[in-house]
């Protein structure tokens, strides 16, 4: 089987496995979380995939700045787009989880949630910035520079700052990340494949977006 089909199949198979076995396997019995701990298999991989996509976007932005190959700019844009559309279900799944464990859909008291909200706005601004410039070379250059700042800010706001202060979100403040105390080996069996699967699926989505961009370019040439 050709490699380019294999990764799609593997990604999808891993996600399906995590959907099925994630609901069936044994998980630690913890207060407050109860069965919702299984959301780790779905909420967290979405964010990992988003980070992966944003990192790709950053890499291609830097490549564009170095080479000004228009294709690199297109890939950077598409990767940010796919990442953004992974952040949305990430936010929604987190919100639903919060409703049942913290008692609220959202709170502005939590640094992680604030950080995520700011990051979403930062990337929204990236898309608006792209739309506001017409000349493709100028657009690519401004967008690429902004992308670098956007990624660094996002990383600080969602990975670094929340860990430095008090937060109810697992992995931040005083809370052990799910990785250390609450994620036992049973859960790891589902969690790691799920992360891999979602990253592979996001690559498939990126590939589709890139192919569509290339087609658009050819047709409107």
């Amino acid at each position, binding site marked *: 089987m050709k490699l380019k089909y294999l990764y799609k199949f593997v990604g999808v198979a891993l996600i399906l496995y995590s959907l*099925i076995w994630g*609901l069936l396997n044994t998980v630690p019995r913890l207060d407050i*979380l*109860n*069965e919702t701990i299984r959301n780790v298999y779905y909420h967290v991989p979405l964010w990992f995939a988003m980070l992966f996509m944003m990192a790709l976007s950053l890499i291609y932005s830097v490549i564009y700045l170095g080479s000004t190959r228009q294709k690199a700019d297109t890939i950077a844009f598409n990767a940010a787009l796919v990442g953004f559309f992974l952040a949305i279900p990430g936010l929604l799944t987190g919100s639903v989880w919060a409703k049942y464990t913290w008692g609220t859909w959202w709170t502005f008291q939590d640094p992680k949630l604030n950080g995520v909200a700011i990051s979403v706005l930062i990337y929204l601004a990236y898309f608006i910035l792209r739309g506001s410039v017409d000349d493709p070379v100028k657009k690519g250059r401004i967008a690429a520079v902004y992308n670098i700042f956007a990624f660094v800010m996002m990383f600080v706001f969602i990975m670094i700052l929340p860990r430095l202060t008090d937060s109810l979100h697992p992995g931040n403040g005083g809370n052990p990340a799910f990785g250390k105390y609450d994620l036992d080996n049973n859960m790891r069996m589902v969690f790691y494949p799920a992360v891999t699967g979602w990253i592979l699926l996001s690559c*498939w989505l990126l590939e*589709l977006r890139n192919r569509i961009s290339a*087609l658009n370019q050819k*047709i409107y040439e």
Partner: protein
Amino acid sequence: MTLLAMMFFSLLLSAQQKMPQMADTFRQEGKIYVVIAVIAVIFISLLVFLVAIDRKVSRLERKVRKNESDQSTSI
């Protein structure tokens, strides 16, 4: 007498250490498979959609490539 009191106390303590409630009865009744089936169906339908889009893009690519080669070979 104190021994009796201590025994009662320990019984009280063990009652506080109730296991966190999980969806055990739900599973015993087999309802978990309904949840899994629903989720699997939703995911697989989205997948079918994704594959269809992928195929459509491939078809368009072939068409555009054919158009290009036709244009370049035509006089």
